[in-house]
């Protein structure tokens, strides 16, 4: 998951295969008033969704996030305001034509039960008059893209598929005519947690390849943090409480509403967004496997540390030389060793330390060579920094910020 972060700013560029990238979506003063309701469901929302990014709309139920999304393909007609996709004002164009250019995935999937999987995917290509062989080729290509064997599944009916498989077909169907924009309304909401996690990971890998502009609605902040290149946290009336990257939102929530919404443990979650490659590692004494006991004693005495990391001739971590062992004349290193790769996150390191019951983790590069260490205290420092930022923010805003009031 972490490896997709920050790498999706190149949207709009055609990547591999026939896939076209995404297009910018701009919402300008978008407003929806339902008759009989005083307050507008969406109140003059301005939002720019960059090409090729996943933007997650998240907020408490009733905040207007789904209404906002459904206005983009005009399943709900805006009362006022403008929707601009790829520079074209689509607020007044034929809604059916518009929807054929926008992939749409909903929580209940909504596959057509009387059609085979292939026919389900082929609906929009047929509407657009594609010829048979092109449709057949596209169906197979899409099934493979979402990880389903085309020969096995194209002739099946939706009822013969599991929930997770159905949602994959739902995504394939939305991608049928390679639309630049996809709207996804809690697509993984009705799927069991284990399958959901797998589908989310697959979805991120898929987006790496297709680079669509994706508007994703969820009420689950964890899902938003995991999937979003950017997150729009919405308060009642679809008012933007904060619109930023997950890292920024976790580190610097803009107001109390955001702080409350992301909930406790934000600082720990933010560790999951920090790569070991991005932080300054600790320095600890290192001895080589071939070094004598005396040399190890000298090193420990000089650095005033109680243990040194043993590395072999390729600088791979092998274990610990502890002052207590040396005092008893023992030369072998003891205890399990928490070893982590630089591409892993601080959260992974914390997990590994808790698992091994140790306080120092060894960090290695791609070849497994020792690069540096990470102490438990350092991790604690990182979280307290984040907590302090939160606390400072709370003190700096004794009166709740505007966006938080209504919620």
């Amino acid at each position, binding site marked *: 998951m972490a490896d997709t972060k920050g790498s999706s700013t190149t949207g709009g560029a055609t990547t591999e295969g026939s896939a076209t990238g995404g297009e910018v979506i701009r919402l300008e003063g978008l407003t929806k008033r339902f008759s009989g309701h005083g307050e507008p469901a969406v109140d003059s929302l301005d939002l720019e969704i960059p090409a090729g990014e996943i933007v997650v709309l998240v907020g408490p139920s009733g905040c207007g996030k789904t209404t906002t999304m459904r206005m983009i393909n005009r*399943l709900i007609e805006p009362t006022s305001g403008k929707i601009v996709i790829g520079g074209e004002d689509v607020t007044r164009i034929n809604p059916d034509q518009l929807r054929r250019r926008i992939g*749409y995935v909903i929580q209940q999937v909504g596959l057509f039960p*009387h059609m085979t999987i292939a026919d389900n995917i082929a609906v*929009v290509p047929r509407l657009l008059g594609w010829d048979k062989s092109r449709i057949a080729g596209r169906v197979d290509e899409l099934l493979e893209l979402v990880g389903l064997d085309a020969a096995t599944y194209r002739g099946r009916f*939706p009822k013969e598929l599991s929930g997770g498989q159905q949602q994959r077909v739902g995504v394939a169907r939305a991608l049928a005519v390679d639309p630049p924009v996809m709207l996804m309304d809690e697509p993984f909401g009705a799927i069991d947690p284990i399958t959901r996690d797998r589908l989310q990971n697959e979805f991120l890998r898929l987006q790496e390849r297709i680079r669509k502009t994706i508007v994703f609605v969820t009420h689950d902040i964890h899902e938003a943090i995991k999937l979003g290149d950017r997150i729009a946290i919405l308060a009642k009336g679809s008012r933007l409480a904060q619109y930023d990257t997950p890292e920024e939102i976790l580190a610097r929530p803009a107001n109390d509403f955001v702080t409350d919404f992301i909930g406790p443990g934000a600082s720990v979650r933010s560790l999951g967004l920090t790569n070991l490659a991005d932080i300054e590692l600790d320095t600890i004494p290192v001895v080589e496997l071939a070094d004598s006991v005396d040399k190890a004693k000298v090193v420990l005495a000089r650095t005033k540390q109680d243990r040194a990391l043993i590395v072999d001739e390729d600088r791979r971590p092998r274990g610990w030389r502890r002052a207590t062992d040396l005092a008893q004349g023992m030369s072998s290193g003891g205890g399990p060793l928490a070893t982590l790769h630089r591409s892993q996150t601080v959260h992974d390191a914390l997990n590994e330390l808790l698992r091994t019951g140790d306080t120092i983790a060894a960090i290695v590069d791609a070849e497994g060579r020792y690069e540096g260490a990470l102490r438990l205290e350092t991790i604690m420092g990182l979280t307290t920094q984040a907590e302090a930022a939160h606390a400072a923010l709370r003190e700096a805003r004794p009166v709740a910020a505007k966006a938080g009031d209504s919620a």
Partner: protein
Amino acid sequence: MLVESQSLYEYASRHVEDITAGVIQHAQVVFVSMSIATAVGISLGLLVYRSRRATDLALAVCGIFLTIPSFALFALLIPVLGLGYAPTVCALVLYALLPIVRNTVAGLESVDPAIMESARGMGLGGRQRLWRIQLPLAWPIILTGIRVSTVVTVGIAAIAAGVVNGPGLGEYIFSGLSHIGSVFALNEALVGVIGVALIALAYDGLFVLVGRFTTSRGIRG
């Protein structure tokens, strides 16, 4: 009294041509009536299903026809349509409407809203959604309505013979009943009753086949 011991079989074989003609007429008037009722019933269902009030009104009107005893309804049609084929078809259509309209509405309403939502979201227009998605999914339920109506209609068509001199096997039944005690009375009535029952069974079987061939494997139970 040699003829007294004549069996049903002997009676039937002696009148095989007349009986065959009666069966064909009977089956045919039901077919014509049901074709009209199906067209009218489904159209009416499509027209009203979106509005609760229109649906209730349509079902109430169709329901009234069913509450009129068939004898009375046939008799009421005589001043308008006279005797024979026309009043028979007209009455049968009126009787057949309710199950078809009711099941058309029920079938269309039974389609999962999520399916209609995704169809709309994919850019299918109103007519495309109806013809490609909603009607095919409602079809098994609509077909059940037509099937129920058909079987009922086969029976009511027999009554038409007695009241408006309609076509079909009804005349055997009425003739038999009016000559109770005479030589052929029982055989006549039996030919009529058994014939009507066989036609009903044949139509029922036909609908099983039609259902198989017109329902997608994806929505068969």
